[in-house]
């Protein structure tokens, strides 16, 4: 029974995607798509823990099932997908490419659900890759030059991530001699390859999780993707990277230096994401940077795992953080879409007020899920090795998030509604449901711990301070703006946007080609006409748009890996 439910949770989205292919079954596919995540939600609610499906013939042997950590991920992931799919139905009602969108949306969903229920490494990697590659279709849905550029950056980083991940998983499987995920962390902790594997997993999953330095695809892809896709990208899919860290890293083992490194990296992302986010002009780009910032905070929660074992453990805290952020961020993304499709002034005000709920939750205002998340992290900092310094920086990040959220709401308030776009009732309802789930549901999840957190009850005012500081800062910024001061603008994608890749790309292609020519001339008498034809090719090679980021990424990867091996 439970096995059937689990298989259905994975297979139903795949079946819907398959029915998108034949014209005859497209109507059925579109009708089923909004409910494709329902079996997954049911599974998260009713299924017992343990191995539910065992298919030894599949790939390297497939085991699917649930345990407490993945149940929580499955819960919020399926809620997000359910809401977004429902939203997508009216959002894309008049889109000529909605069948194509549904196809990729369903494949991505299948990957996202599958990687959560995978108990063995190869299945996890399979579903992870399915999600990654299917999401490309969501990113480039708009079909504009901008969308293709976002898609290119996305896929280049994703493929590099897959490579790093494969290397990490191979090494982990090698040291553990097992393909079951549950066996890996302990074996990795004991092996001489520990540090290499940690680096590979950190970066391999980091591409998906928007780790600082590998985050460039996020602010490009999230704004350009259709709103329901942005919601699941930011709310659910980047959490797959976090889940990877939680499942594979040797947490609950004392590795203080890694704790400090993770925390520093996380805080850097938390601050940089907030600052660059404030400098954005588009609402969805702000939200994308906010996601980078919040994933940084989750990395701090992961860092706690390298300290002594605590109650609740680092894994629980990070998972709770993920659920809280996933619900709030998806509510914000859908809300941005709702407000864009609403014309009436009074309605827009009401929507803004409702949007403020998940926004202040992200800041960690009193009595929000964000306050619980922050308090959970802070309560463990004292006992963690060498992480006491983190606390003030968490507050600084909260101030940054506060400023970012205020900027977001002000931008939305000032924005003109998109007159040509209307949303149906189901879309609005799914957004409202997510807002409610974000405001209340997260409390329900945190229930076991709330009473053990004295800070929550005794110092609610403390939690308000970052928000107040952010408000004061925003007022000051507005005054300066009126006085004629102008802040910098940072283009979405920051680092990527700084470079014009075209000349570099061409130079590299020409160089490689010349080397190739020289080699060919030695081994083969090339006629003069052929040489001339080849030279003509040189120019065309410059058009090979993927070539540069891939080759550069590959060489960096080769270089780094060689260096690591040499240093060992």
């Amino acid at each position: 029974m439970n096995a059937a439910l689990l298989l259905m949770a994975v297979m139903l989205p795949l079946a819907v995607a398959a029915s998108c292919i034949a014209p005859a079954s497209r109507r059925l596919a579109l009708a089923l798509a909004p409910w494709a995540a329902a079996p997954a939600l049911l599974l998260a609610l009713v299924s017992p823990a343990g191995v539910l499906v065992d298919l030894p013939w599949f790939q390297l042997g497939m085991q699917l099932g649930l345990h407490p950590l993945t149940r929580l991920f499955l819960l919020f992931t399926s809620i997000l997908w359910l809401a977004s799919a429902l939203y997508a139905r009216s959002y894309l009602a008049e889109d000529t490419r909605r069948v194509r969108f549904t196809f990729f949306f369903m494949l991505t969903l299948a990957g996202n659900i599958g990687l959560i229920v995978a108990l063995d490494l190869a299945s996890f990697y399979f579903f992870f890759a399915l999600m990654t590659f299917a999401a490309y279709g969501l990113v480039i849905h708009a079909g504009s030059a901008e969308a293709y550029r976002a898609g290119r950056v996305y896929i280049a980083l994703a493929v590099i991530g897959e490579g790093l991940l494969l290397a990490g998983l191979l090494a982990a499987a090698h040291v553990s001699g097992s393909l079951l995920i549950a066996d890996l962390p302990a074996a990795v902790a004991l092996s001489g390859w520990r540090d290499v594997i940690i680096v590979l997993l950190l970066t391999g999953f980091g591409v998906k999780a928007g780790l600082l330095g590998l985050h460039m695809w996020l602010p490009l892809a999230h704004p350009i993707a259709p709103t329901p896709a942005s919601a699941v990208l930011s709310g659910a899919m980047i959490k797959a990277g976090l889940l990877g860290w939680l499942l594979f890293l040797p947490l609950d083992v004392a590795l203080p230096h890694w704790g400090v490194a993770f925390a520093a990296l996380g805080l850097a992302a938390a601050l940089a994401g907030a600052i660059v986010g404030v400098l954005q002009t588009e609402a969805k780009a702000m939200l994308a940077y906010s996601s980078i910032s919040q994933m940084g905070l989750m990395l701090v929660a992961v860092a706690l795992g390298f300290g002594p074992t605590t109650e609740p453990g680092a894994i629980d805290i990070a998972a709770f953080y993920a659920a809280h952020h996933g619900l709030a961020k998806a509510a914000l993304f859908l809300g941005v879409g709702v407000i864009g499709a609403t014309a009436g002034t009074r309605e827009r005000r009401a929507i803004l007020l409702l949007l403020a709920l998940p926004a202040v939750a992200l800041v960690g205002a009193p009595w929000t899920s964000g306050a619980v998340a922050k308090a959970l992290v802070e309560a463990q900092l004292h006992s963690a090795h060498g992480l006491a310094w983190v606390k003030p920086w968490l507050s600084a990040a909260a101030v940054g998030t506060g400023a970012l959220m205020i900027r977001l709401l002000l931008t939305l308030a000032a924005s003109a509604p998109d007159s040509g776009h209307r949303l149906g009732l189901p879309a609005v309802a799914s957004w409202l449901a997510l807002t409610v789930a974000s405001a209340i549901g997260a409390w329900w999840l945190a229930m076991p711990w709330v009473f053990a957190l004295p800070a929550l009850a005794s110092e609610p005012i403390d939690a308000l301070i970052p928000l107040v500081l952010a408000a004061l800062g925003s007022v000051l910024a507005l005054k300066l703006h009126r006085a004629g001061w102008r802040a910098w603008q940072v283009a979405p994608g920051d680092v990527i946007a700084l470079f014009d890749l075209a000349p570099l790309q061409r130079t590299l292609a020409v160089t490689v080609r010349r080397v190739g020519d020289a080699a060919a001339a030695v081994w083969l008498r090339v006629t003069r006409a052929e040489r001339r034809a080849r030279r003509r090719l040189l120019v065309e090679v410059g058009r090979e748009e993927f070539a540069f980021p891939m080759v550069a990424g590959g060489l960096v990867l080769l270089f780094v890996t060689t260096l690591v091996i040499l240093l060992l």
Partner: protein
Amino acid sequence: MLWDAAAPLLTLATSLVTGLVIFVLSEDRETARNTLNIGAALLKLVLVGVMLWGVYHGAQYETRFALLPGIDFVLRSDSLALLFVSLSAVLWLLTTVYAIGYLERSPHRRRFFGFFSLCVASTVGIALAGNLITFVFFYEALTLATYPLVVHRGTEKALRAGKIYLAYTFTGGALLLGGTVWLYGLLPAVDFAYGGVASTLPVQDHPALVLIFVLLIAGLGVKAGIVPFHSWLPIAMVAPAPVSALLHAVAVVKAGAFGIARVVYDVYGIEFAADLNLLTPLAVVAAVTILYGSLMALLQQEVKRRLAFSTVSQVSYILLGIGIFGPIGTIGGAVHLVHQGIMKITLFFCAGNVAETLGLHRIDELDGVGRRMPATMAAFTIAAFGMIGLPATAGFITKWYLGIGALNAGMYWVIALLAVSSLLNAAYFLPIVHAVWFKPPSVRWIEQMPATRFETDIRMLLPPLLTAALTIGAGVAAGLVVSPLTWAQFFAARQYLR
């Protein structure tokens, strides 16, 4: 038993006799020729199936008679041979169906199908050869049988390509023959046997054995397309699509790789080769070829040339697996013998479909083709994902076994190599996949074939769809008894568990 002695010879005869009969049939006896071709291919499938069943249950099939005093002609079906023969039997059938559709309206079909069958017969001979001299015999026969196929179009470009092809392969053949003769000078007979025969030689012969190894590998490496002997391969692309498909997937290139496997496993023996320190250099050569082939593929603008350089790169995965000491690495190499075949033949079928149906040969002309030929391009996409090594495709299984095998053998650099190679494969396949599905058409397609109910001739559509399905099947159902992986494990177990 008569059957045990006859089975390998019968398998060889299915293609050989077919080829000879086709030469006798006149050009316009099309139905008879096609029936004979398909019938023989099906018969061969049955024969191979029976032998697979038998060998899996411990039977031995061997045809042996004296060629010269002291030199036997031996055909034998061991596990490695069957891996290769099954691949060639399945792909022969599909390629024949494809070629019938492909050559529908072109001249010289008798010549084409005649040599086509001889080419497959040589491949079967190479696969089943039970000793080195029989192997060399069929290896040379393959060169001769393929030449007319390469120059089939008869254009100046084709003739030039044929010349280069002959120059390369005959040089390679000479090296191989030299090594073989030298080895026969040292040993009374070089029968292929698990664990090899060369290790029986005294220590003072070891330097000579190293030199012979270099000669043999260089000779075989020409056909396997290892750098720097690969240049003929992209040039031979002028051949018709079914020939390229067969050349890259089963016949010539694969014969070279298969020969190297034979030399390492059954002439020298994997342990003895490791003792002589021959494996690491082989793995390094393979690594260089993998990277070089991928880099060059990135720079090609013609579909078939890009696929050709991709073959250079992918075939060396097999050599890499051979160069990794240990059962897991051996499985990775052996299974890629099959995996590379089904994936690459899919790509060539698809390239041929696009070229024949719409007259498109260059990558920048492929924009939007997915709309016109969705099934072909779906097959192409699957095979391309397989080449990258994405999970749930055959390529992932290969990569996984190579990776774990390399780690077990302490060859950590292989991990970086696999990661970078996947990246490069992604870099030259993903832009095509993107262009065919998401870009608007950049050139006006000129329909080259009469319209049918399907996007192209059904005989040209089914083969790539089937091989694409096999690509997924071999990746997804890798744990089934009938999967290539299981057979490769069966083979590896015999190499190490003696």
